């Protein structure tokens, strides 16, 4: 009896203490798993990541570029919001400022990054992204990762879904989520409709639109040029959230693109806001609504182009629709709050479950056949995942290795930094049967969607210095041009000097400062800040930028380089001399040459300096 008690006791003690012991089998396993996960994301200094992950910046109005698998933040590309550090749209008179200001507010809400494709693969030319808040679309040049074009979509409010019309990427297809009357001037809810727009992929001019009652949410293109799909959650055309969930079923909309093009060619449209608008009721077949459970959200065409999946959101299901016949094939249950679905290269779908805070992996073929074991795996993510995207899932050739879970809440996942918490993204290894959450990383607000592009696609495309443009200021051709109270300053910079090193203006003069960085080596960015004038220009090697401002009160204003460039970075500065009206000005671009500034007696180096 006594031995038995002692054995029991020791077992109880072992179990109790084992829970806190660092050497319990369970914790050893976890440590081993951590070590293996760490190895997967470890990219040593000097080595490059395999993928660029381009995340929309949401209300930051930009896109974020991360390296995958390291999850290292690499760059933010400002688009719809000025970014003074980068000299983007912060200086009135600059090209970036003019372009953004010409299209609307100096703020935007980016949602869906879309990469250009050729033959069902990313070709590394362009990235398109929408501004939900102001009905704009931008095109980013992936050679420079800079915004190349921004345009407003007429007749639209709340540009939400965005996709490239495949396989040609001839159009960018943009969805209007927020209803308004056709021209947008009425407050009468009875007149509300929505439009979807087909934009020229290069100029971003709206070529034509299709209008309908209700709204459009997320977009995805078929692969063969027939349909572009969208989820429609407000077929009620209601104006309250209660009203929008009234119907049991809403729809997937399938826009027949060839039919729409034909309608435009045949003149079956009304021109509104300068754009041909096809009323869907007048052109049968141009918009087919496929009923799905109410208020669907995600809309994703499978890589083989056979199916379009509508994620249920309020329904625990994903609706599988034949992308050609538009027949509903199956409606498998996947979990609570399915929002978006993405794909690997082995016929599996990965659906984000907002309510369950999970990614669920399921087999599409088995779900269609009604086999009970279509759910393959589930993994917890932290927390409330919105979009999820696997590498290459928007192309015809997903790579099936990595998946990003773009979570809406981080709730203490990172060091506490006050009530405004960072967003949380998680990297999931989907190369095996079981998914593994490998790493979590924070980001500014608020990525809605992401795309991966392999390093090899961009390898020969990304430039590292700019070619001098025709409007560049050339070395030796710096000058100050005066025309009444307008002064044009043509300036160059190269380590470690601005030329001219001083210029004179009158108080209140309108100064247009054009600056060219004449460096030829990569990463040698210079900036010029003008104190108390709100000016910071940043120019990368070979780049030219300009700013226009009014000279302040008389005095000396030292303009200085804002990008630490060299051993003489701090000395890289010059003077804007503002004089009172009527005072004489000196127009010599560089009145003090280097030699004149230095003492005339030559100081011999000490003897020890010689070998």
């Amino acid at each position, binding site marked *: 009896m006594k031995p038995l008690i002692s054995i029991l006791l020791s077992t109880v003690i072992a179990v109790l203490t084992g829970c806190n012991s660092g050497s319990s089998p369970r914790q050893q396993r976890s440590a081993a798993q951590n070590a293996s996960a760490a190895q997967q994301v470890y990219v040593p200094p000097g080595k490059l990541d395999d993928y660029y992950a381009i995340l929309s910046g949401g209300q930051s109005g930009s896109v974020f570029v991360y390296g995958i698998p390291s999850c290292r933040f690499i760059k933010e590309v400002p688009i719809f919001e000025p970014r003074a550090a980068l000299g983007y749209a912060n200086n009135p008179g600059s090209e970036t400022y003019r372009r953004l200001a010409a299209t609307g507010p100096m703020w935007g809400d980016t949602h869906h990054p879309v990469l250009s494709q050729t033959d069902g693969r990313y070709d590394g030319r362009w990235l398109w992204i929408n501004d939900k808040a102001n009905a704009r679309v931008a095109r980013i040049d992936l050679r420079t990762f800079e915004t190349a074009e921004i345009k407003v979509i007429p007749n639209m409010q709340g540009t939400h879904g965005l996709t490239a019309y495949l396989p040609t990427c001839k159009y960018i297809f943009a969805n209007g989520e927020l209803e308004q009357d056709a021209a947008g001037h009425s407050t009468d809810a009875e007149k509300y409709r929505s439009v979807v727009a087909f934009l020229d992929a290069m100029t971003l001019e709206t070529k034509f639109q299709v209008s309908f009652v209700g709204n459009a949410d997320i977009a995805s293109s078929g692969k063969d040029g027939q349909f572009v799909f969208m989820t429609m959650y407000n077929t009620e055309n209601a104006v309250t959230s209660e009203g929008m969930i009234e119907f049991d079923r809403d729809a997937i909309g399938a826009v027949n693109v060839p039919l729409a093009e034909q309608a435009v060619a045949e003149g079956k449209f009304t021109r509104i806001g300068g754009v041909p608008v096809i009323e869907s009721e007048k052109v049968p077949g141009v918009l087919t609504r496929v009923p799905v459970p109410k208020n669907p959200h995600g809309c994703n065409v499978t890589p083989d182009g056979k199916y379009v999946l509508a994620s249920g959101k309020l329904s625990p299901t994903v609706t599988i629709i034949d992308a050609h016949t538009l027949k509903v094939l199956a409606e498998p249950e996947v979990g609570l709050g399915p929002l978006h679905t993405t794909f690997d290269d082995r016929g599996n779908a990965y659906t984000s479950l907002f309510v369950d805070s999970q990614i669920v992996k399921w087999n599409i073929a088995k779900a269609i056949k009604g086999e009970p074991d279509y759910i393959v795996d589930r993994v917890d993510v932290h927390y409330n995942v919105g979009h999820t995207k696997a590498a290459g899932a928007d192309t015809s050739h997903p790579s099936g290795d990595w998946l990003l879970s773009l979570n809406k809440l981080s709730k203490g996942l990172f060091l506490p930094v006050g009530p405004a918490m960072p967003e949380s993204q998680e990297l999931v290894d989907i190369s095996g049967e079981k998914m593994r959450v490998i790493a979590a990383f924070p980001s500014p607000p608020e990525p809605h969607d992401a795309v991966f592009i392999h390093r090899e696609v961009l390898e020969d495309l990304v430039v590292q210095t700019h070619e001098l443009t025709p409007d560049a200021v050339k070395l030796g051709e710096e000058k100050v041009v005066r025309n009444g109270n307008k002064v044009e300053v043509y300036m160059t910079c190269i*380590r470690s000097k601005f030329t001219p090193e001083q210029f004179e203006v009158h108080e209140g003069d309108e100064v247009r400062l054009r600056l060219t960085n004449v460096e*030829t080596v*990569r990463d040698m960015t210079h900036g010029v800040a003008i104190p108390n004038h709100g000016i910071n220009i940043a120019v990368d090697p070979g780049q030219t930028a300009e700013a226009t401002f009014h000279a302040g009160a008389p005095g000396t204003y030292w303009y200085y380089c804002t990008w630490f460039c060299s051993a*003489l970075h701090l000395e890289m500065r010059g003077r804007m001399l503002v004089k009172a009206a009527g005072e004489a000005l000196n127009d010599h671009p560089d009145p003090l040459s280097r030699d004149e500034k*230095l003492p005339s007696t*030559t100081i*011999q*180096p000490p003897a020890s*300096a010689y*070998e």
Partner: protein
Amino acid sequence: MNKPGTSSRRPRWLAVALVLAAAGLLLAGFRLPLWHLRMEAPQYRGEDALHVIVYPHTMRGDLQELAVLNQYIGVHVPETLPQFRWLPGVFLVPAGAALLVLFLPAGIRRSSWVGIAVLLAFTLLIAVYQARHQMRDIGHKRDPKAALMGVKDFTPPFIGSRKIAQFEVHSRLSAGAYCAGAAIGLLLIAAGVTRQTQPARVGATGVAAATLAPDALNRPAASS
């Protein structure tokens, strides 16, 4: 191919081939880089390494970046060099001359080719001497008002590696120099081959040539 007796007037095919090859190498070398300098530092590694490539007529490479860097240590990097005026001639003139010699009387061919080779070697040596002098000046005649302190005078290596401030400097001869070297060698061989046909000049007939130069008979190509 080259029958005894005919060699008294026409150069042997081998000499012709060698001289043509030498001239070809010199013509190629005229536009090929002579010398290559590579500079590496932590922030100038791999594809960021700086290069200076000297051709007979010009120099290319990261000259602007070198000028920018050198302003801190007071080094004046010349944009051009005086020898670019005559170095192209060092390649073109011997090439032309060596070809002309083919049409000269057989008796002075050998000495002419030797002379051209020696002259070519000599002028190249002058160019090397001048370059070494210029390189010493670059590192020693520096602007005393330069920004950086504590930089010691230096001479970049002409061939080989040296550490200069933060840079590892590697210098080597390049294709053009090898072309010139090979051309010198080929001209000398051509002269050597020519020597064996010398007796043909004094002999009246092919038989005499063969008699006076018995080694020529041992050469199957010459006697067949």
